[in-house]
């Protein structure tokens, strides 16, 4: 009896907070049929927003994957000054509101900011352009790979790596042949979470991008802009695309991750 009650609570909670709102988004998007929804997501502004979002993710995700693996190796395998500081600083993006991140970037790179005037003099555009949007996205999606890989590295220990070195493998060979295969599912899971976070980022990007339609709009800010312009079908249809992208990443993850590997 208690088991069913627990199940009911879990399903009820997920439905009320997740499934029902998502369902409404889908219903509203297609309220006038598929045609208008399709037209709404194929306007030049919408297409540009999709492309820009994908471009940002294509830069931010590999950057954070590389940084995440290196950082996790440093945290677990090395003892150095400031070890604890690095370990806690990695979690900062999880605690900090993205809007604050956006404002901080604005203060650094905006006109009158620390680097802003120098950049302006040299005709380099960061704020209200792609570089600041990439920076903001990298910042907010930074912890995921690190946090997924650190526990896996701890669990596998360093004996396999030591064994490889006594067998003649250089540190580079040991990394590619021993360490990376051993942490691959942690890295994959980290990449999925990073991608999801990068696609869904709104706050920081919204502040630094200036939200110029057809120029610096991402999928999320495009949804916001359409909503504010009372184009409900446009806003909902773009939301559906976002939701589908998120589901696709999750689906990819479950497909690539065999059951036995997870429980091992």
């Amino acid at each position, binding site marked *: 009896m208690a088991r069913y009650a627990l199940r009911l609570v879990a399903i009820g909670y997920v439905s009320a907070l997740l499934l029902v709102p998502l369902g409404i988004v889908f219903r509203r998007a297609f309220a006038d049929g598929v045609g208008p929804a399709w037209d709404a997501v194929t306007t030049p502004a919408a297409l540009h927003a999709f492309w820009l979002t994908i471009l940002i993710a294509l830069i931010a995700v590999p950057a954070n994957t590389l940084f995440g693996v290196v950082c996790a190796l440093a945290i677990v395998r090395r003892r150095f000054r400031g070890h604890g500081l690095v370990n806690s600083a990695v979690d900062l993006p999880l605690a900090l509101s993205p809007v604050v991140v956006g404002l901080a970037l604005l203060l650094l790179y905006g006109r009158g900011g620390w680097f802003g005037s120098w950049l302006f003099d040299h005709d380099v555009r960061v704020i209200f352009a792609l570089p600041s949007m990439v920076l903001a996205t990298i910042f907010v999606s930074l912890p995921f790979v690190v946090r997924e890989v650190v526990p896996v590295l701890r669990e*596998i220990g360093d*004996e*396999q790596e*030591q*064994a*490889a*070195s*006594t*067998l*003649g*493998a*250089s540190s580079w*060979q040991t990394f590619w*042949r*021993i360490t990376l*295969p*051993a942490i691959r599912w942690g890295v994959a899971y980290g990449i999925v979470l990073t991608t999801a976070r990068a696609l869904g980022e709104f706050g920081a990007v919204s502040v630094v991008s200036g939200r110029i339609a057809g120029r610096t709009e991402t999928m999320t800010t495009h949804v916001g802009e359409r909503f504010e312009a009372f184009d409900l079908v446009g806003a909902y249809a773009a939301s559906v695309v976002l939701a589908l992208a998120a589901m696709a990443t999750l689906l990819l993850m479950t497909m690539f991750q065999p059951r036995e590997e997870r429980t*091992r």
Partner: protein
Amino acid sequence: MIEARGVTKRFGDFVALDDVSVQVPGGSLTALLGPSGSGKSTLLRVIAGLEAPDDGDVLIFGENATAVAPQKRGVGFVFQHYAAFKHMTVWHNVAFGLKIRRRPKAEVKERVGQLLELVQLSGFAHRYPAQLSGGQRQRMALARALAVEPKVLLLDEPFGALDARVRKELRAWLRRLHDDVHVTTVFVTHDQEEAMEVADQIVVMNDGRVEQTAGARELYDEPANEFVMSFVGPVNRLDNDWVRPHDLELTRESNGATRPARVERVIHLGFEARVELELDDGEELWAQMTQEQCEELDLEPGSRVHVRPRRARTFASTQP
């Protein structure tokens, strides 16, 4: 020959190795024996290059290897918990060192085949480590270490994680393997029986220092100090004398040199019997004898006996 000269290693305030010098003859099978924390594993890891000593040198066949990376020392290392490459099959585990060295495919294939036969795992080439038993994993780790034809084979408590029966089998097997392959081998153990059964030479370590280096027989009969005496076999303390339980002679009659005692308990262990005694001055000790001797003396709890050490040792500095 492998030589450690004045090796010192500290971990923070803890001195793991305190000016240790050890010589391992080429082709020998040497055991590093000691309780946990005695520095035996650290010494092995220093020889392998997995730890850098704070002071002292490591020489491998006359060459100073102290600054040489573990990759280039020509050592094979076997870990207590196997350190199997979990994502590779047995075959690829064993082939790893050869592939790193870019040996021709045909040679790799032949060598791995030979080694798997040597460690009796030919039928398991395509299994993953998770599908093997502990003993099989350790034999795979041995084959992997031997594949690169190391000058020195180092084993860190190789049988420590295995159950008693498999341990015994693998010990005998290691001894036979060493007689066949003849690679200079050093292994770490805390089990004095294991060291005595397998090794030509035993280095007894305690508190980061070497207490004695000798063969099994000499170590047992001529221990250098109390620590070695009590670590390599059971002992009784009689005033300032150290006596092995089988060197205690029990008689029914006093003969002047004996001391009176009372039997507390008699334990029958098949061939052997153990007799727990309390001397009249309150000191407790135990004697080891054959079942037959025990019956002749007709011992049972409460019996009055007289005790004399047949052979005893006294050491210059007596531990408190």
